[in-house]
């Protein structure tokens, strides 16, 4: 398997319960996985563990044949080759769009870096925005720059934390489609986290449902959620919470 997670455990030092309780699942290369769960269920924490930003208390995680952590290994986040799109994008405010993207590129000539930045900006349809600063972009544009920045170094895995939560509803639907196209075109393996089952349905090859820090179900969108509610005429968008009645 391309990516394997076994018995992953974690709790915050100031909390007695387990925030991530015994997660195990595997992912194939190029697959887009969606993690679906209500807020506070531990989704962000899980992504931070995979990213290496938090230290798990047990379990193991292998990516593309490399051990990222197990009992005697802990690879630092900068050495993992994993990209991440943060919920608030975390674009560096003191750098232009181009410099934000170049920041993450491995050693190569300045010319090649600029070329690569141009490629990913084209992918997210932001050609011409190279010299802008983050505060000069709309929310949707910022989101796409964050995505471009994460994709540019060609990571082996990309993590997205609620990528649509800061966008207007109209924009969410459009960008959702774009995101799947971009991820598939870049052939990136991705895990994205959401509390919205429509997002999960529209984007994912497979869905991992989590509840109170535990994996509840894993399966294909149509098996877990049935027909997408947005495909039924006249049906309003409902969130996962409403769907499962919490």
């Amino acid at each position, binding site marked *: 398997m391309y990516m394997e997670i076994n018995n992953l455990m974690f709790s915050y030092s100031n909390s007695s319960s387990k925030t991530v309780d015994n997660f195990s699942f595997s992912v194939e290369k190029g697959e887009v996985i969606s993690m679906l769960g209500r807020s506070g269920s531990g989704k962000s924490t899980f992504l931070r563990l995979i990213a290496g930003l938090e*230290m798990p208390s047990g379990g193991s995680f292998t990516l593309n044949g490399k051990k990222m952590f197990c009992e005697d290994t802990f690879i*630092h986040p*900068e050495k993992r080759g994993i990209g*991440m799109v943060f919920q608030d994008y*975390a674009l560096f405010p003191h750098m232009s769009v181009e410099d934000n993207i170049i920041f993450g590129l491995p050693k190569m000539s300045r010319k090649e870096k600029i070329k690569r930045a141009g490629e990913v900006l084209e992918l997210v349809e932001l050609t011409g925005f190279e010299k802008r600063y983050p505060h000069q972009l709309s929310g949707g544009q910022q989101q796409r720059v964050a995505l471009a920045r994460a994709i540019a170094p060609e990571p082996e895995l990309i993590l997205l934390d609620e990528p649509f939560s800061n966008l207007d509803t109209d924009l969410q639907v459009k960008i959702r489609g774009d995101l799947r196209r971009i991820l598939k075109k870049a052939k990136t393996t991705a895990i994205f986290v959401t509390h919205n089952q429509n997002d999960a349905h529209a984007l994912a090859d497979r869905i991992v449902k989590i509840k109170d820090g535990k994996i509840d179900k894993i399966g294909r969108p149509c098996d877990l959620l049935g027909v997408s509610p947005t495909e039924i005429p006249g049906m309003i968008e409902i969130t996962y919470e409403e769907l499962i009645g919490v």
Partner: protein
Amino acid sequence: MNKHLANVNGWTISAVLIIILLFSPNLSIVLGIFSPASDNWAHIKEFMLLKYIKTTLTLVFFTALFTISIGLSLAWLIAQYDFPLRNFMKWALILPLSIPPFIGAYTYHGIINYTGVIQKTLRNHFDITPNPAYFDIMNIPGAIFIYTLVLYPYVYMITRIFLSHQSASLIESARTLGKGPMEIFFRVVIPISRVSIIGGVSLVILEVLNDYGVVKYFGIQTFSTAIFQTWFGLGDLDSSIKLAASLMGIVIFILIIERLLRGGKQYSYSTTKVRPLPLVKLKGKKAVFATLYTVSIFSVAFLIPILQLIDWVILTFGKVPMEDVLLYTKNSITVAGLGAFLIIVFSLVVGNFGRLVKHKFAKVLPKLTVLGYSIPGVVVAVAVITTFITLDRFLAPFYQAIGIDSQLVLSVNLVMLISAYVIRFFAIGYNSIESGFDKIGTNFRDASRMLGANSLRTFFKIDVPMMKGAIISGFILVFVDILKEIPLTLILRPFNYDTLATKAFQYASDEKIMEASQASLLIVGVSTIAIFVFHKLLREEPK
């Protein structure tokens, strides 16, 4: 799994080392209490100690009282009312902070002594020769007057910010309940601003305890002057350590009282968006009174002394050779720049450690270093010199081995002075840096590491550029404080090394008041510019 700790190990080690370095000299004072007492000490304890305590507490009490009265009334006027010149006064009333107390002291002495402008005018134009005793300010009330003038801005500043940002709903509801301004002031404003008043006045008190220049110039016996005298006059370092320890006891006592009065909770301006207090426009007599009141405080505390200094500079221009003034300026900038630079670097290391290490001790440890700012300069001087002499003794064999002839190397060097500055003013820089780190959070840092940058690259490429505002304002604050500093510099400077402050102080002490004006005006000028820049920075920073 301790692997994660390895991540921050470099930071942790450096941060802990810095904290120990900053904190340990103060321990030498505490240890000094236990060393055997000399005859001097027995004498001091029996005849002098009580007097020092009484004088010191008198100065502290009345200065606190007057700074609260002036600071609070100004804060209230500016925060609630609109009147002619209000917008200018709002920040002009802070400016007296740029006048070091000893400069205020000798300037005022110069203004009102026998040859000063007031008595001269009375004699020459009105033919009045008043009893000179009326014009003596070189006493305890005079010192309280000077302290009040240059220190009230602490109370004013902190209380005004609190009142303009935090009090709108409370004061408005009091107004709608039909309460008059006086009643609102005493029943609402004073109680709700208690915490900020205490915050401001504790700074005032610490400054009074720290002061050496005014009391020395006025010939008043307090702890600061006694420590200095016992040490240099009697050559009794042990006794001055004991005096320093007593003073430190008073400081700690005051800090504890402060905590208790604050009701145990740290005050913080809540981060939620707050509605500013809408201004009430004053009309007629009331407006005239408000303008007059603020203008007269500003004049007495800032304008008049500055005009007098300018007058003296013009009168004595060329009397002090230009190259001397340039040399003192260069020395001042060198030590203040070096000190501020080191403090900012250390603050960045310690602040980053406090942010990244998720352990309680990483939050508490940096707070220890803040003690340095509460401890009066003379005490820090005693602590640092004791430590450096010990260090020199310890290193003596090493000096011999590498062929240095002298017994004392470190303790006669600029190194000692700069170290003392770093210990005393670390808290000023650290506060600024810490709030900078708080503001940027850890998200950008995480993002950077996910893009393959290691801890060090992240620090220089992301953290430092994003904290530019905090770094610059921290640097400015420390720089100005060092520029104005007197006791540490006087005691710890290398032989014949003069700064603007030490030179101004020496001239004034030798009654060469006019010669002192040039250096003084330079200090005040630079400080004023710094305060101005600082306010610009603060205002432009997005909330």
